[in-house]
């Protein structure tokens, strides 16, 4: 439930006596740290109704309604996320999102058409997109965060396009030149750029340097995926060997070879998907555990084994349901993440203050969405 005490004055200042030192060397006991867990109130069955109806309307209106559908979907997830008795809120405006989508379409259409006849031109558009990505990323984050609020205070992203250029063009190029060895470091720098420029009201998020985690994470993930592949190949070779010993002829052997090849191709998808998602989730876990928001800290208790089970389940559920399990997948994933996330707050959570408000246009988000720029926090 929400707090039952509140300040007697209306200007919203933090409650007095939150543990500040008065300049004297006297011992003031640190305020008790409250653990405020997140809680997700949504359900897959409830969300399925919302998701499928809005999807149908989007299709029937040739995509125009999709902006309204997006807002409803987001509001469902934000509005069912509770922390300390209050819900989050998404304020995206459908018309602004529609404008963004139409612009994205105007950009996407020539790229798609050109890539049919002119591979060179398609490559050129990809290059242009890469160069424009800092701008797109900054716009997307500004929009997404400005339209998110908790207890009526808005989040914000204050990073500039100029700085983004360094993190999303210069560093990746460096990373590629290093034959990929520097790429974990690049991603780590990008993540710090995103986190350290995120704001809640007047307060800033802070993420410390943690390159070690990135490298250990990537090494383990790559190792695990290679191990999975090796085991897969070994198993197939074993089966093939047994078949040969059992006397299957050359024709059967050829069919088996082709079948095995196709199987490996298809199995590579879950291995990469699950491996990649687990790695990113684990890194996010470590980031939250080390980050702060003013005096607030976070406790993220996700585990790799549970994440792998989660993402494997998601992958196969989506495949076998031809996508209809998406509502269940989304709810399940968010519930897991929220069940394992808490805010550690000395004092109360009512001590944050608002920043000066600004109006943001939506153009960035939808354009970035289409070209698959993933900037998940």
């Amino acid at each position, binding site marked *: 439930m929400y707090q039952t005490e509140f300040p007697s004055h209306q200007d919203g200042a933090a409650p007095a006596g939150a543990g500040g030192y008065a300049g004297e060397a006297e011992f003031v006991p640190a305020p008790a740290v409250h653990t405020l867990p997140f809680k997700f109130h949504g359900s897959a069955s*409830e969300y399925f109704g919302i998701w*499928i109806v809005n999807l149908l309307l989007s299709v029937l209106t040739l995509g125009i309604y999709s902006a309204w559908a997006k807002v409803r979907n987001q509001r469902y997830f934000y509005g069912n996320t509770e922390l300390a008795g209050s819900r989050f809120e998404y304020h995206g405006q459908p018309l602004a999102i529609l404008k963004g989508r139409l612009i994205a379409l105007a950009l996407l259409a020539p790229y798609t058409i050109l890539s049919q006849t002119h591979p060179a031109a398609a490559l050129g558009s990809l290059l242009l997109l890469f160069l424009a990505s800092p701008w797109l990323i900054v716009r997307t984050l500004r929009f997404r965060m400005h339209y998110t609020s908790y207890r009526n205070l808005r989040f914000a992203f204050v990073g500039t396009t100029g700085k983004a250029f360094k993190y999303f063009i210069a560093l990746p190029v460096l990373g590629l030149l290093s034959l990929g060895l520097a790429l974990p470091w690049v991603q780590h720098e990008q993540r710090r750029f995103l986190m350290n420029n995120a704001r809640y009201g007047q307060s800033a998020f802070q993420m410390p340097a943690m390159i070690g985690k990135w490298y250990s994470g990537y090494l383990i993930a790559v190792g695990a995926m290679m191990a999975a592949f090796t085991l897969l190949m070994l198993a197939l070779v074993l089966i093939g060997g047994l078949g040969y010993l059992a006397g299957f002829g050359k024709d059967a052997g050829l069919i088996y070879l082709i079948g095995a090849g196709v199987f490996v191709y298809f199995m590579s998808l879950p291995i990469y998907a699950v491996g990649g998602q687990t790695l990113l989730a684990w890194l996010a876990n470590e980031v939250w555990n080390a980050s702060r928001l003013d005096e607030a800290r976070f406790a993220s208790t996700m585990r790799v084994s549970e994440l792998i089970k989660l993402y494997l389940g998601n992958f196969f559920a989506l495949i076998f349901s031809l*996508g209809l399990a998406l509502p269940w997948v989304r709810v399940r994933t968010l519930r897991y993440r929220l069940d394992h996330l808490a805010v550690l707050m000395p004092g109360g*959570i009512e001590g944050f203050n608002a920043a000066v408000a600004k109006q943001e246009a939506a153009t960035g988000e939808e354009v970035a969405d289409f070209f698959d720029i993933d900037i998940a926090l």
Partner: protein
Amino acid sequence: MIHLTAIYYDGRSSAAWPAELVIEHDRLVVKLSETRLSYALADIRVAPAVGRMPRRIDLPHGAALEVADGQGLAQLLAEKTSWLVYWESRLRLAALAVPVLCFAIWAGYRWGLPLLADAAAPLVPVATERWLAEQTLALLDERWLHPSRVPPERQLRLRNAFARLQREAGAHYDYRLDFRRGGPLGANAFALPGGQLVMTDELVALARNDMELLAVLAHEMGHVEHRHGVKGILRSSGLGIAVAMTTGDVSAIGGGLAGVPLALAELRYSRDLERDADDFALQSLTRSAVSPCHFPAILERLSANHKGGPEIPDWMTSHPQTRERMQRFDQACSKKR
């Protein structure tokens, strides 16, 4: 009088205050522990209900309310149940959306998108078609094709006969017929947008007479006259864009998995266009001095030429099955015999 509990946020800090809401004299009254705020209903903005979650009311001056009891709020404000919320909340009704959705997607793919793409095709100027053709031919010459070894007299003879066929068929385009050694492409003929036709030496060698080659050219003319090149590109692009538009925020599976069904879907469009070109060939040959029977004849010859490989099922190929194509000509053929 309905009383609702809510949480009040003043928008300047993250503090949360318990509040009670009532409607008095058409105004929303917010009772906090020490103050009473009153707002005209026109000045507040109530967020639409989504599922059963708490609803937000935006108050002037940046304040807001969070109301846990969505139903109660609807009663308090005398809101009519939105049809959308009704539909979303009745699971059986919502489940009906699944078959409707599948049908809508199927219908859009089968008829809607082709219609749109075909309607957009005339907007593409002929100059663009020619430019596309030039680029494609240059690419083909670079990669696979070699200069033709068909003797110039034969080429001239075929070109003259083709010119006559164009007149008889009422062609709208200026055609250009070129010959190339096909190499890996084998016995083949293809049409590029804008009227550029290419025929391989191997096909010339395979045909029994010039009439059979003219029959093939009639089919290729169909592709040009009906602007299949542009339509095909628009249809395929449209598919890709449609998938991106409706699944705009789904990144769960990613491009790789969608690629195979997309390619198969595009092949269906290709088969439709091939059937259309066959129809054009039938009509134009019937009007001309060349017997339509030559078309199934050369088709059979081509099919025999390619035999030895595995039978590719219909849904995997860009052309309809040869048997099916030949059957269309059976009727007309027996007539003109």
